[in-house]
């Protein structure tokens, strides 16, 4: 009984920290409509800044409180700076681009933190008052956790007073309800947005500093925190403060009891709960309906007839690629194999994002499933290469179809979040299922048969990837692709002319999943190994960047984007240790400067 009570209290304490982060995220979303991927980074900065401040002050409680408040102010100021210099430029960009831009910010902050504070974990020497315990019968419970438990509701109360008893709060609520109306009333939106962002950032920073007494400042905080906070905010309903509080409580308790009862699947459990909540309430517990999916990706342009010039360029490139093994070495051939796979991976995502208008932030899920399907079949069933490669698209396609049934009616940011959640589930499963998948160490030694050789495998990959990509392209010019686009452009009209949009979208999810699965299967053999990272967020972002770099509006976009990205990656990023910073900066330049991508820009330029 005491044990149970102690566990519940522990859960409530972690829920409080989570709430501080989630509250900031949800307030920022409510007012600015930006889903801030860098929110976890602000929490991480709070931990590091809090460490610097607190290691220079005395260890009494008053100094600790002062240090936390100072961290709130400093991170709040950093947030204000971030808003004024960058976010302000992307308020009118589609939601997906905003998500991607703030992901870029996250990458940059990570490298900058590394430069300033170094790679090691930073801990504070524990002050005596932080080491205290209270007795719960048999159990000892830390006083500090008790303080945290009261802090969460305290902050909720303070925010409630701020929102309901001050002019600033009234403006925040009004802007959350109707942004245009607030603008029409002559309120200076810029100052309001900056202030809201500073408030949210400060809360995240404070949460980071509060991690220190029982943990450390480290470089993993950003991603871990932001993914949890996303789950909380999506469960509660984006923009809703009470929703964030209830979501935090749910996740906090779930994590504690998950570890106790089902330690193997804790990571999965959290996302499962989110998926169930969204299946029952598509906008979260207290959320408003999200904006239409299609507009979350781009403001869709007219698609003109196919250019024959592009066809000739493509054919010429293919001839060069086929002949390449005759005059290049192993290194270049390796990169070209990766490029061919990247083209298929990007093309599969483009089918979803372009014609179907489905924002996916977790496309690596299917890539990872394909890779592991092939690898596991090779390792445990001693399957020959053709069979293992066949299994990749089949497994990915079947799972994509099951996933599609659950999500195909959702839209906008919620759908993007659920794709991200599913990818995290896949990642967690392969990460934790040690006996089968080798966990973090992956599965090694998965080379294609000796007889095939490097050249043979390259030609096989080139053939399969080209064929699959061409099929995906053809679909877009076929009735199927037009029907998908019809639903994206106007769902009511598409239904009125009798298009079975739910089935069409489901088919698109399945086909895209299967194609990405094939790409993953081929990739595993090209690298000779598979790792959980194949299903990770970084890889999902790779796919998104390829599509956006090439241009989501154009059918040739993913091909151009995949090739350009692979070249950039090899040419630029491997030369520097600061690849996160460079990649992050490149994302920002892309989103702010060239939202239509390379092919899109070429089309605009050509059309002049």
């Amino acid at each position, binding site marked *: 009984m005491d044990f149970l009570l102690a566990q519940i209290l522990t859960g409530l304490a972690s829920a409080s920290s989570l709430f501080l982060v989630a509250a900031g995220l949800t307030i920022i979303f409510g007012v600015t409509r930006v889903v801030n991927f860098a929110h976890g980074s602000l929490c991480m900065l709070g931990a590091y800044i809090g460490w610097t401040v607190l290691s220079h002050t005395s260890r009494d409680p008053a100094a600790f409180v002062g240090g936390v408040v100072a961290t709130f102010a400093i991170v709040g100021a950093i947030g204000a700076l971030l808003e004024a210099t960058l976010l302000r430029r992307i308020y009118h960009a589609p939601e997906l681009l905003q998500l991607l831009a703030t992901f870029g910010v996250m990458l940059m902050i990570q490298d900058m933190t590394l430069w300033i504070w170094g790679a090691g974990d930073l801990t504070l020497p524990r002050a005596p008052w932080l080491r205290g315990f209270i007795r719960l019968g048999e159990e000892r419970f830390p006083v500090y956790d008790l303080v945290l438990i009261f802090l969460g509701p305290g902050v909720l109360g303070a925010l409630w007073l701020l929102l309901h008893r001050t002019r600033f709060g009234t403006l925040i609520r009004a802007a959350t309800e109707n942004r245009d109306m607030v603008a029409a009333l002559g309120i200076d939106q810029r100052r309001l947005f900056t202030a809201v962002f500073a408030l949210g950032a400060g809360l995240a920073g404070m949460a980071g500093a509060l991690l220190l007494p029982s943990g450390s400042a480290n470089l993993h905080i950003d991603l871990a925190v932001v993914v949890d906070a996303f789950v909380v905010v999506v469960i509660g309903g984006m923009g809703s403060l009470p929703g964030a509080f209830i979501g935090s409580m749910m996740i906090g308790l779930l994590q504690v009891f998950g570890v106790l009862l089902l330690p193997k699947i804790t990571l999965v459990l959290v996302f499962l709960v989110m998926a169930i909540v969204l299946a029952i309430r598509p906008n979260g517990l207290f959320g408003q309906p999200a904006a239409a999916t299609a507009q979350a990706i781009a403001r869709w342009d007219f698609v003109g007839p196919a250019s024959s010039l592009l066809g000739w360029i493509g054919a010429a490139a293919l001839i060069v690629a086929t002949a390449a093994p005759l005059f290049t070495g192993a290194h270049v051939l390796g990169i070209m194999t990766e490029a061919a796979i990247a083209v298929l991976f990007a093309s599969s995502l483009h089918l979803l994002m372009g014609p179907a208008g489905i924002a996916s932030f977790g496309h690596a899920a299917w890539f990872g499933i394909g890779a592991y399907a092939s690898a596991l079949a090779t390792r445990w069933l001693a399957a020959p290469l053709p069979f293992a490669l066949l299994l990749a698209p089949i497994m990915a396609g079947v799972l994509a179809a099951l996933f599609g049934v659950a999500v195909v009616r959702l839209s906008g940011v919620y759908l993007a979040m659920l794709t991200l959640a599913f990818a995290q589930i896949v990642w967690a499963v392969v990460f934790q299922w040690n006996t089968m998948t080798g966990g973090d160490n992956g599965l090694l030694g998965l080379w294609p048969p000796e007889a095939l050789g490097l050249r043979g495998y390259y030609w096989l990959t080139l053939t399969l990837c080209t064929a699959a990509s061409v099929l995906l392209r053809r679909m877009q010019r076929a*009735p*199927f692709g*037009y029907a998908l686009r*019809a639903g994206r*452009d106007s769902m009511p009209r598409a*239904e009125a002319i*009798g*298009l079975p949009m739910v089935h*069409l979208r489901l088919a698109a999810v399945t086909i895209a999943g299967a194609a990405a699965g094939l790409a993953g299967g081929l990739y595993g053999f090209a690298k000779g190994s598979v790792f959980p990272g194949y299903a990770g967020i970084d890889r999902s972002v790779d796919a998104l960047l390829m599509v956006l770099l090439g241009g989501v509006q154009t059918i040739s976009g993913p091909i151009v984007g995949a090739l350009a990205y692979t070249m950039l990656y090899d040419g630029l990023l491997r030369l520097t240790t600061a690849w996160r910073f460079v990649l992050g900066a490149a994302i920002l330049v892309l989103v702010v400067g060239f939202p239509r991508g390379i092919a899109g820009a070429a089309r605009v330029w050509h059309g002049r």
Partner: protein
Amino acid sequence: MSLLRVESLQKSFGGIHAVAGVSFALAAGEIVALIGPNGAGKSTCFNLLNGQLRPDGGRILVNGSDVTDEPVRALCQLGVSRGFQVAATFTSMSVRENVQIALLSRAGEIWRFGVSVVERFKADAIALLDRVGMTALAERACGTLAYGDLKRLELAVALAGAPKLLLLDEPSAGMAVAERAAMMALIRRLADEHTIGVLFTEHNMDAVFSIADRILVMDHGALIAAGTPGEIRANRHVQAVYLGDDA
């Protein structure tokens, strides 16, 4: 047998009886206008008919078969097409492709993955655009059309479904006087040539009286009058609650 038969249709929103027991029928080739002051329940009634809303009570029959609880797609298969109050078209496609996709849908060719759309039903699409006088605009991007043209394109898209019944929500909303007259004449001509039954709502009385065979008048969720334009004009009740505002 009536093309459309509506029997004591009901819909409430939190205690407000938006549609309280509406019954009427519509024959093939007949044009019927549904009018009434703001808040009378026209739009609710209309959204019940086109499947956007589910009624609380009553029945809707199309050609004798009960479609009350059928989804939008089933209505389409039974020959019910609709126009939207704010024109809804596929903006990433050309005018011709908008019609082509509707033709492909009707022909059951949506699930084809390998053939190019470019040539499928091209001639039929052009023929339909000709019917609404838009052949010259066939290759234009749909997003660049003037509002009146978008409304005409909607008609062509609706015709592609070979409809027996056309539901039009304020077909001439937002149009100038000359444009409006042309639109209403076009609807009359299409209804006559293809024996299509048309039910439409409209705020503009000139548009209503110019083409309607019959007029249904709603107020406070109920039908208060039904009859030919002449009869409605002479109806004192209608004058009191509705036309009185105009006079």
